[in-house]
Every structure is written in C-alpha cells, then in structure tokens.
C-alpha cells in the first residue's frame, strides 16, 4: 500500500513525501508529534501536520541558525536556545569549546523524548554535558532574566500554536533584556514567499526592529520547507552581522560544515528585491 505524507503549503499547494513507515504518533498536551521514515528525506519530524525537520536537509537549518551568530560574537560563553526539542541546534553549538553554558528551554518534553528515541542524528546534541534542558514556557522563563546570555537562539515552530508567544513584541523585548550588552538574538523568521507566511515574517521583523538597535534578515534554501526559501533574523545590541564577522577567527576553529561558510555568511544577508521591500515596508512604520 503506498502511503503519502502531505503538507499543505497553502490552501492550493502541497508537498507530498512517500512514507516508508510511521515511527511514532503522539498527542502531547501541546501538540501532535509524528515521526516518519521516508526514502528520499530519511526520517522526518512533523508537528501538528507541519514538517519541522528531515534528516536529509536539517543540516542547512541548524548550521545557519547557529554558526552565523557564533562567527560574529567575539567571545560567547552563555547561550540560550528556545524551542529546539529535536537537538539539532545544540548539536551544532556543542562543537564550540568556548561555550560554558548551553541552556535549552523547551515547552514540550515529549518532543525531546521522542527525538531521542527516533532521531539520534539531531538528538545526539543533548549528550553534551554543558547542555541543560528546562521544560517550561519560553516566555515565562525569559521575562525574569537580565543580561544573562551572550546569544539567544529562538528555534521555534510556526507562529500558530504553542510557539505563538515567541513571535510577539513582548517576547523579543524580554529577550533584549535577557541579553548582555553585546548580545545577539537569532530567530527562525518564516518565509517571504507565500502571502500568509510573508505576513508572519513581516510582523516578526517589525517587532524585532522596534526592540533592537540592529535587526537584519538572512536567508537559506531548505527544500522541505514551504517554497524552500527560508529566512532567519539576526538582532543585536552592538554587532553588525557582516561588518563584524570574524571570518579568520571562525575558520581557524576548523569546524567542518556542509552548508555554512564565511563567504556564504556574507552572501546570506544579500536579499532579493521583493524581500528587501517586504522588510522595508514594516521598518518605516
């Protein structure tokens, strides 16, 4: 029997992946968590019917959300990751010996447990002894902190569902407060392509711009995400993502990557005209 997993990218567009078998299906108090195995994309994690990651292309997302801030900040020691229950982001972070503290705030323990069981490719990140996972609401955790972290990575799901609060102005403001004076926040920034995603992307940008001195957007190509064109946000109190890039220093670390490199770092901040326009439209207001 052929079994196809389909995700609606818009009302009229869908991506389908032929499933070899389903590995788990679990309804947590927050969301529906499913993991499938497929021929072309390997294992993939779906939450509430949306693909979060596939074994085949997760490296793109996780390298881009991690190495970009790490190559700009001169001496990061304390990193906070919000969301990221699959472990991919902490796997990349654990490659930096300079880090002393890697805290993960995940609202749903079931995501971590199921990924540990079925997605060792990303969940291996949790094995690093510097990684501490706290199971609670990211909004609640962060609003009590002041100048606690050098880098905050907001690795959230889409802005509808449990992550809604992680796209709000109050959340970005609380992140600002939780960062040190030279802190950097990087966030999953949705896609500019389909209109509904673009609106969410614009709203996030508008709110980040109003909270941080510097707020820039960069892109990557992630085949399993709607339209394949995905954005990340880089916000900082002090550093410019390209002018302050410490390319030689980062290259001397000898971290091998499949997607990220310091040339691509510079290029990722060069955006198509239509994206620049979408961003400019909300910056002026």
């Amino acid at each position, binding site marked *: 029997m052929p079994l196809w997993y389909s995700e609606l990218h818009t009302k009229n567009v869908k991506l389908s992946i032929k499933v070899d078998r389903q590995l788990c299906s679990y309804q947590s108090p927050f969301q529906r968590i499913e993991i499938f195995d497929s021929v072309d994309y390997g294992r993939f994690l779906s939450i509430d019917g949306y693909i979060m990651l596939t074994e085949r292309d997760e490296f793109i997302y996780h390298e881009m959300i991690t190495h970009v801030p790490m190559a700009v900040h001169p001496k990061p020691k304390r990193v906070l990751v919000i969301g990221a229950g699959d472990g991919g982001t902490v796997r990349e972070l654990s490659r930096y010996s300079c880090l002393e503290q890697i805290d993960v705030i995940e609202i749903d323990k079931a995501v971590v447990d199921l990924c540990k069981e079925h997605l060792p490719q990303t969940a291996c990140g949790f094995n690093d002894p510097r990684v501490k996972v706290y199971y609670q*609401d990211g909004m609640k955790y962060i609003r009590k902190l002041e100048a606690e972290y050098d880098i905050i990575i907001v690795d959230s799901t889409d802005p509808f569902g449990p992550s809604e609060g992680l796209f709000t102005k*109050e959340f970005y403001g609380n992140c600002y407060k939780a960062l040190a004076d030279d802190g950097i926040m990087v966030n999953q920034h949705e896609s500019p392509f389909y209109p509904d995603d673009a609106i969410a992307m614009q709203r996030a940008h508008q709110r980040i711009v109003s909270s941080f001195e510097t707020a820039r957007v960069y892109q990557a190509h992630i085949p399993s995400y709607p339209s394949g064109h995905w954005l990340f946000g880089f916000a900082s109190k002090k550093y410019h993502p390209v002018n302050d890039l410490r390319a030689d220093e980062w290259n001397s670390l000898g971290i091998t990557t499949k997607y990220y490199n310091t040339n691509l770092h510079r290029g990722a901040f060069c955006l198509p005209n239509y994206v620049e326009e979408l961003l400019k439209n909300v910056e002026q207001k």
Partner: protein
Amino acid sequence: MDQNNAPILEALKKFKHSRVVPFDVPGHKRGLGNKELTDFLGKQCLAVDVNSMKPLDNLCHPISVIKEAEQLAADAFGAGQAFFIVNGTSAAVQNMIFAVAKRGDKIILPRNVHRSVINALILCGAVPVYINPQTNARLGISLGMSVIDIEHAIKENPDAKAILINNPTYYGICSNIAKITKLAHAHGMKVLADEAHGTHFYFNDSLPISAMAAGADIAAVSLHKSGGSLTQSSMLLCKDKALEAHMRQIINLTQTTSASYLLLSSLDISRKNLSLNGAELFDGVITMANYARDEINAIGDYYAFSRELIDGDSVFNFDETKLSVNTLGLGLAGIEVYNLLRDEYDIQIEFGDIGNFLAYLSVGDNYKNIERLIGALAEIKRLYKHKCGEHIPSEYITPIVRMSPQDAFYSESSSVELSAAIGKICTEFVMCYPPGIPILAPGEEVTRDVVDYISYAKEKGCSLTGCEDMSVSRVRVVG
C-alpha cells in the same frame, strides 16, 4: 431538573432538520438572500437566525421550549423565576428597577452604578438616594457600601422602595449583600442586585455569595460576560416566583418582539455548560487569575490586588477571577497601560481608568495568553516607567443631586463650556467608558472637582462619553 437538557438548542436542531419553507421574516431566508453575510458568519449561524414560531416558542409569551429553558435556568441559579433577556444586561437592570419603582419613588443605591441604572431613573422618574461607596485612597477605586451607611440611609429615607447593590463592582468588590438584604427586608424594601459581573458566583462555592443565595429579590445577571454566552444576551432572576406575571409585563414594555434565537440558544447552552461544568471551570479561572496576580506582583511596581483588601464591611468579599491591577507605582495611569497593551502588544484588556486596569478572565482563557500579558507588562515597566508620577488621587466626589434624573433630563437646557457650567445643574451624563460609571448624571450640580476630574481624565486619554458634545468640552445644563 436535568441540567443536561437544552430545550431551545434541541428545538432549533429539530427545526433545522425539518426543512421548513420560509415565507416569514427574517428576509434573508436562512442566509440565501445575503451571500456576503452568510459567507462571513457561516451557513450554520444564518440557518438558525429565525423568527418566533410554534415549535420555537415566543419570548414575549413563553409556553413551551423557552418556558422550559427559563425554568432550567431558574433551577440552575437558585431563583424562583428566570427571564431570558436579549437587549443586554442594561435592559435587565432597567427592568428590575421598573418593577419596583415608579415616578417619585426613592431608591437607595451606591454612586458607582452603571449608567443603565440612572437611565432607568430617567425613564421611570424614580429618585436616587446615593450611598457614598467607600474609597480606597491608595488604589483610587470605589469600594462597596458600608452597612452603617445603609442603616443611616434607611433611617433617613424610610419610604425608599428598594436598595440596589453591585455584586460585585467592576473591580470585583462585594458589599455584605446578605446583611444588607436582611436590613432592607426588615424595613419593607426590595433588594435589587446588579450582577453584570457576577454570573460565576452561582457556580463555584469558593466565590462570593450570589444575590439569589443571599435572599435578594431581583438580580440582573450578564451571562455574556463571565458565562460565555453571546454578547447582548442576559438574564433577569426573581427570587419569588409570584413576581413572574408582573415582571413579564414590565419586560414586554421595552423588549423586542423579534428576539434573536442566536442569543436565546446561547443562553440555553451556556446555562447547561455552567451548571454541569461551572465549578471546575471557575476553579481553573481562579487558579489562573491567582497565578497571574503573583507573577504581575513579582514584576514590581504593579499592584494586582485581591483578597487582602477584605475588611469585613465596604470590602466584604473579593472576586478572585477579576485581575485588577493598580499601575500608579509605575508612574503610569491605568488607561496609559491599557493603550500601550493594545497599540504596542496587540493585547486588548477590559478597561483602564486613572489608576488601574482590569484584565477580564473567564471560561475562555489559557496560560499561553496569560504569559503574553505578563510578558508585555514586564516590558512596559522596562520601557515606559516614569520616575515621578504626579497623579491626582481619585477621591470620591460626592454628587449634589438637585433634581430627579427625569426632571433634569427633560428640562429646558442649553450647552455651555465645561468651566462655565460650575454651579449649574447638568442634564446629561459624563462618564468614562468602560467602566461606564457616571462622573456626572442628569440632575447633579456641576462642581469644580468634577470639572477638574474630567479635564484630567481627558488628558490621560480616557474615553469620555455620554454627553452630546463628543469632545466633552461643553455640557448641557438646566436653563
């Protein structure tokens, strides 16, 4: 009675299946005649927007399903008779006053009543005897009525027909309604309760006592506020079943003859839900409100107040579901925080006044949104806190009633500048909305204090309403 039943809901479901051909009103004919409206509200909704007819009963003269639904409601609320109201709780409040007072009769009431109460006095010609609600100076809010003040008012006005009680006030403060009811009854006066903000009292034992349980005669209960029914749907409760016929006559004077079945069914369904699940639902709301209060107080400078205000008299009890927060410690007015939450954070709260704001929690809230509210309040403190806040303490301004509201309202009048009105008798309302409690009511003298308060409220961005001049720079006065 079996509270699992919902007679209006069941009749509407049956009606939908019977596929009756409509040659009656409403003219949209189950939505077919208004496509845009149907697309917007949904077929399901338009299909039951129907008129009174044999299988669906008639609100003006209920004999079948509406009668049964009202009986179930009376049972659920511990009343002798319940009336479904579709013109808002304002109508319920007015009807209970019309039922006990006519032209020239006196009613004892606290000054912090909703405008609908004074509207009723304009319409029926009754005369208010105001009780000074005690004021908490630190918070700048009106409290409940003190029993001693009631005793005094009864002594001074032994001919008064009734006492009206807010149970609770907008901020969640309750007077000693049981004791006041005993006092009133001992002097042959009726007790009317404005329970616009107290529906939930009927369904959870840890909340303050409800009017019916306290023995009050009539209560106006706003199911659409904490109870979850549709906006504008409400109930009027009578303790004594014998009052039914008279009350129905009164209600029919002003109630529509085309009662909306959307509203009626929402009352029926909400009553069912509240009586079956209310205790558990409101346990959840109380827990959530207490959590939010603790977290907001932990931010600092905000004061989310609660049961610690209880003093056995003018704050006899407190409704813990009300998330009332004082903002003066931040150097910001409540209305300023209200505006920041909406304009900057997309969070709409119930109201803000000079010193406080109220976030309304009910059966539909969740922790995700509570976290947003708390997070936004933390941000507002970080970004907008003022060093020095100079706020005029909102003290109680004793109204000087020079004419009955009706006489003033219908007097020859002229429009004058606010400052030129001092010493004259006002013929219209001035109030902040919400909460909709009058600063000036028809028949009251305009004083310097009142003019100062209005100017200050305007400056802080309060939405002032009620008078003809939309900008509230002129008021109408007698003469």
